[in-house]
């Protein structure tokens, strides 16, 4: 973690995480050669979508990578992430996971940060929005 929790205050952003999304990644994640709206352009279009869309869990995964990068393995013991999927990520998108400190508090075993988190694409469109909470000793 490059930024110290102690240095962060309410309103500060934590280090973001960016990923360029490809159809190959989506297929690897979602079980190609199974043809679904997450792996196949034609199947997605037959369902009224503009093209294949990434699973919401991929977007959730980018948020988790950002949070683990920041909190370290302590995220996995006491971390909480809640995210709503507001728009699909699609092949060719550059997805960035971001977070802003909303509250900071001392606990017996460390400092807890409550964050507003989101993923956005290269156009600034929000793909997922939510909250996260983690603790650092």
């Amino acid at each position, binding site marked *: 973690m490059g930024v110290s929790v102690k240095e962060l205050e309410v309103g500060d952003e934590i280090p973001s995480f960016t*990923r360029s999304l490809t159809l190959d990644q989506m297929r690897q994640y979602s079980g190609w050669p199974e043809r679904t*709206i997450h792996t196949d352009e034609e199947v997605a279009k037959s369902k009224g979508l503009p093209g294949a869309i990434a699973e919401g*869990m991929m977007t*959730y995964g980018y948020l*988790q990578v950002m949070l*683990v990068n920041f909190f370290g393995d302590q995220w996995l*013991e006491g971390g909480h992430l809640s*995210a709503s999927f507001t728009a699909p990520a699609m092949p060719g998108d550059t997805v960035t996971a971001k977070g802003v400190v909303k509250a900071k508090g001392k606990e017996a075993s460390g400092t807890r940060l409550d964050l507003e988190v989101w993923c956005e694409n290269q156009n600034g469109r929000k793909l997922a929005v939510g909250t996260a909470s983690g603790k650092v000793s």
Partner: protein
Amino acid sequence: MKKETTFTKATIATTYEDLQTSEVSELWGSYVVSEESNREYQAVLGDLNSWYNQNTIAHPNAVNDLTHEFIQNSYTFLLPPDQSTMHTKQETEYLKKLKVGEKISVQGRIAEKYEKRGRNYVVWELEEFDPAGALVVRVRTTRTVGKAAGREE
């Protein structure tokens, strides 16, 4: 993506109307995060943390994705061809690190169903336990049922 899940709950074909909420969880099955799947989840998400494999800790997205399999495997919704289900929200609380190779048991229930702005929503709650019986993860996942494909929240 290699997945190692064992489902004990039978798949049900149902409509939104016939779904029943429950106060009681039932055992849905178990999963194991292998070293191979840990590496695959890291690679596909672009996660460069080396300590997952150094410390044989299960990647959180492996945990979440394998948990999601239980929802997808257990319910087949009877819908017209132009409709589908969409995953709209995910909440996860991590209580304890999961280890690669550890068999995690999953219990679940339908906690809520509701209509909002003309769409039907179903909320599942799952609890996951390590081999010693300790609660390690809590998950709450929401899907629309019968959402028209391509529509967004």
